[in-house]
């Protein structure tokens, strides 16, 4: 693959507005970002600046009011619900602050979920889910339900679930927001390891020490990108400039 083809995500003039009747809330007001393969990005900014909104759009959980979103070279902003479902299933792994596990299902079944919707047969599905759980250190908790697990363990299950279908990007919205500091550190170690193994990660966080782990910090203010700093620890990347997109063959 050529260097410029390494761009996974490009957004141009991405806008999201909520019509609240009396007023319109402008959650995103024209966001241009470009993210390359194997980047580890931290999204920061004050509360209400549109971080979650941006991540949800990038994760195809929501659709923009205006603007373009190009994922792996193809525009997705106008796709139909089921096509978006396919992208969520294959290309994106999402980790939420509140875990969002199915309460009545075992850890193993929760991790199997994306594979079920990918149409993987029961045998290989269980095997892959089990491997993903081993990978996050939960080999001995597979048959536990979420309420029998600690917060950190639940988030590990959620990470295993996000990764089990080998997505091209891993999105995390304040993944340590509900965890204490030691557990947070463990989860962060996991993310760093994943990044070292080549995983592209975009993570929303409030905490600067956590953002320090990232290679680049995108800061949102009032629904717009205020800064997009590349740091030395990560691969050098000319950020603010509009990315050059070549047609992928």
């Amino acid at each position, binding site marked *: 693959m050529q260097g410029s083809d390494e761009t996974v995500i490009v957004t141009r003039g991405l806008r999201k507005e909520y019509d609240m009747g009396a007023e319109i809330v402008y959650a995103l007001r024209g966001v241009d970002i470009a993210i390359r393969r194997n980047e580890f990005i931290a999204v920061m900014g004050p509360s209400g600046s549109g971080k979650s909104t941006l991540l949800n759009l990038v994760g195809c959980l929501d659709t923009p009011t205006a603007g373009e979103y190009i994922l792996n070279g193809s525009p997705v902003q106008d796709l139909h619900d*089921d096509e978006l*479902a396919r992208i969520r*299933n294959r290309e994106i792994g999402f980790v939420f602050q509140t875990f*969002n596990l199915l309460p*009545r299902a075992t850890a193993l079944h929760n991790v199997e*979920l*994306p594979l*079920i919707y990918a*149409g993987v047969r029961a045998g290989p599905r269980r095997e892959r889910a089990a491997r993903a759980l081993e990978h996050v250190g939960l080999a001995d908790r597979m048959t536990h339900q979420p309420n029998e697990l600690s917060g950190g363990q639940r988030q590990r299950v959620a990470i295993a*679930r996000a990764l089990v279908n080998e997505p091209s990007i891993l999105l995390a919205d304040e993944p340590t927001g509900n965890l204490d500091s030691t557990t947070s550190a463990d989860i962060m170690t996991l993310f760093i390891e994943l990044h070292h193994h080549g995983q592209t990660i975009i993570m929303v966080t409030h905490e600067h020490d956590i953002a320090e782990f990232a290679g680049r910090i995108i800061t949102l203010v009032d629904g717009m990108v205020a800064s997009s700093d590349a740091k030395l620890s990560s691969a050098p990347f000319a950020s603010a400039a509009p990315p050059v997109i070549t047609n992928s063959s």
Partner: protein
Amino acid sequence: MSLAEAIRVALTQIWAHKLKSLFSLAGVAIGITFLIAVIAVVEGMNRYVQEDFAGSLFGVNTFSVVRRPTVQTGNRSAEEIRRLNRNPYPDLDDVAAVRRAVPSARYFAYRDARRMSQVWHGERRRRNVRVIGGSEDYQGTQGWEVEVGRGLTPLDQQRGLKVVVIGPEIAEKLFPTASPLGKRIRLEAHRYEVVGVFKRKGGLLGNAWDAAILMPYETYNQTLSSKRDRVLEILVKTNNESELREAMDVAEGALRVSRGLRPGEENNFYFQTSTQLLSAWERINNILLAAVPGLVSISLVVSGIVIMNIMLVSVTQRTREIGVRKAMGARQRDIMMQFLAESSFLSLLGSGIGVLLGLGLGKLVERLSPLPASIPSWALATAIGLGLIVGLSSGIYPARRASRLNPIDALRYE
């Protein structure tokens, strides 16, 4: 595809909310119970009429002498019914009296019959057979045709030979490979030689006569009769309407004389004509057939609405779960399928329970009345089909609503 997942989720969901599930399937269960019970009784009555009175239904210009009317028409007082129930069965003396009274009858026949639990040939057995001891003309009055072998002859009758003509269903069961002709069958301790097999009457609901065994009245009287010389009915067919009236009058007088009834005393026997019987039966049938589909569909529509509402509540309660599934890549049809599976399972479970309860109710009717309960397989298929239709149609709106939720709105739902 995730059909297996849909079913798995449906079952866990139903099991996790047992009480709620029970409520939602109760409506379907009640509707189907009702349907099955009514079909069981109607079918039972049909068979009852076929088995016990078909003999009286051999057409116009016919009357039969019986102990009491075979179908209650409903406008009789309890006192009268009690009196009719005290009437003695006709016997061979009555047969002789009626025969002398109507020498010019076109047909004159009589029969006795009983239901027997089993008939044997060697190790093979057929359960539930109808054994008839018929007089010489009896087979002719029924319009039965013989498929193989021969019918009963006057000689069989006169000598009381132990020969039988059997229905095709019995022939199939006892003699699956070889010809039954010349073989012996056993009823209780008695053995009879098979001389013929009747042609199948069949029909949509099957025909009770296809599992009947006919033997000479005399033979029956000597071997299986529950009361010697008893006759279930005496059948008379005349040439025309006016002869019928006249024959009935004469026969009535003759019977009164032979039974020693004083003037003014009520008849202790009953004359039945085919028109009477048919109109009574038709009336019952019409009432049932008019009322049942309406009542059943009302109860099914109501229970469908109940299921739909419970499913809608369920969709609301599980909005976050739907959000999680959609976030993990569930398509609209996956979510649809999940909720449809749930509503269909509920409804099918309901109709299954309804079938069992309906069968129970039918059995109860059977014990408390002379009507045999009978459930044809099409009724079971109908019940299952209705269950499925109610389940799918009541699930479709909630399922669509669930499937169209925006993933992020669903995930944010509190």
